[in-house]
């Protein structure tokens, strides 16, 4: 109903303008607490150090440099922890009444959500760059060309988008600030049962089956191949399918939640 009636009043249709204004606002939030970007990167960097310098020597199953092997999974963990801040920022807007203020104004209905989602993209990119810089200092090397790097960036952006739309749901529905980030723990844990840290071949049956069929493995393998400059093959398509699949479902659920709660 509101869709049809919105068309009558052009001022409310300017989704791009309103999203830009609200994007600028929440980017300012991020700039004013740069610690969120650093905090997002700290745990993944610690894992990188731990696994490379402490466990790395004992992990004989991996050929070549373990940093190179490990980095893609660590990047996914970075995103999984970064999106918790997006959920938190959204929750703050809901509980602080900003959402109601905006809802009573003639602005694009989903502008606030898009502002937060795009901010998440920027903030996570910054954290990812930090992690990659540390990896480079630890000896990570890639023979990948510009195109492959762009493909990695594109895939990571897609993962960020998909996970961010998941994060929107608790951001809208959480009852307390403590409850808002709980959803990200399983996402952070998922790479541990994948090819991110060790090859799946050595895992016991059911665990191996899960590891080989869950999205992290195909995404990690794809990024690894791109960095190594070797053809990606089917893994790439599976990774893309997972990302788009999760993105579409999460987007639909998040928008549905928003309409239901804030029609």
């Amino acid at each position, binding site marked *: 109903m509101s869709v049809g*009636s919105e068309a*009558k009043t052009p001022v409310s249709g300017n989704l791009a303008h309103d999203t830009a204004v609200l994007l600028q606002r929440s980017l300012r939030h991020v700039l*004013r607490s740069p610690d969120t970007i650093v905090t997002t990167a700290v745990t993944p960097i610690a894992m990188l150090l731990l696994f490379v310098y402490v466990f790395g020597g004992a992990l004989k199953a991996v050929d070549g440099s373990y940093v190179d092997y490990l980095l893609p999974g660590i990047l996914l963990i970075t995103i999984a922890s970064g999106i918790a801040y997006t959920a938190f920022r959204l929750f703050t807007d809901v509980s602080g009444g900003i959402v109601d*203020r905006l809802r*009573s104004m003639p602005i694009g209905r989903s502008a606030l959500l898009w502002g937060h989602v795009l901010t998440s993209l920027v903030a996570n990119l910054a954290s990812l760059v930090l992690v990659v810089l540390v990896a480079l200092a630890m000896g990570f090397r890639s023979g990948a060309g510009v195109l492959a790097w762009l493909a990695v960036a594109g895939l990571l952006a897609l993962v960020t988008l998909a996970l961010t739309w998941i994060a929107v749901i608790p951001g809208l529905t959480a009852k307390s600030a403590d409850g808002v980030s709980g959803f990200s723990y399983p996402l952070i844990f998922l790479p541990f049962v994948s090819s991110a840290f060790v090859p799946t071949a050595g895992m016991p049956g059911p665990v191996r089956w899960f590891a080989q069929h869950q999205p992290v493995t195909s995404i990690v393998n794809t990024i690894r191949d791109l960095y190594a400059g070797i053809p990606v093959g089917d893994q790439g398509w599976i990774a893309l399918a997972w990302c788009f699949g999760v993105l579409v479902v999460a987007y639909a659920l998040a928008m549905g939640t928003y309409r239901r709660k804030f029609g």
Partner: protein
Amino acid sequence: MTTPTAIRVAGLTKSYGDRLVLAGVDLSVAPGTVVALLGSNGAGKTTTVQILATLLRADSGEAAVAGHDVATDPAGVRASISLTGQFTAVDEVLTGRENLMLVARLRHLQDAGVLADELLDRFGLVEAARRRVATYSGGMRRRLDIAMGLVGDPPVLFLDEPTTGLDPQARLEVWRTVRDLAGAGTTVLLTTQYLDEAEQLADRIAILHQGRIIAEGTLAELRCLMPPATVEYVERQPTLEDVLLAIVGPDTRPQEIGTTR
């Protein structure tokens, strides 16, 4: 656009679960007037305002603001109103000035900065303009909140308990602003706990009780509702409080009194 009534409400009902909050509210507000909605805690003032501001959907009944139906044309309503809710809704991370500019930009106004400075001046926030709102006192936040509601001069203004928590000076400033706005043709519907505020500010007063508007009129009209026995030759005119208690009676307030907030 001129409409005979700026706000028209007929038979509005709303329940939360099986708790009936609005049981058929009728109200009509003429353009350019200030109407105060009075009622005890939990009477449904905020609920009414939220329905009119398109934040909540009524169960039944009709409501139109500036000629737009809240149910079928919420976007039209939003383009004509501004809501300052009961609880302050400001961005803590931004500065006061940035908060005002944010609203101005979202309303597609030119010269957002000039507009912001003007309002900061009017609400005594010039000193604090470039400080983050997180460092503001409660009253400063509320003043900023009200100022944000004035950006863009919307023709219909909803103020839900605008002066709760303000010092006397800020309260007078809000009153003066409301009078100026009404003088310039803005329609204001405000809710208040302060009977003197309604007396001071409102052209008409509506009393919401047990889900209905049980009395509506000018202050003088409401005073006539006083039972004759209490009209005596005393120095003092009966205040609205006397009127309210006379109409409602001291014992018929809703159950939750004293437990809210």
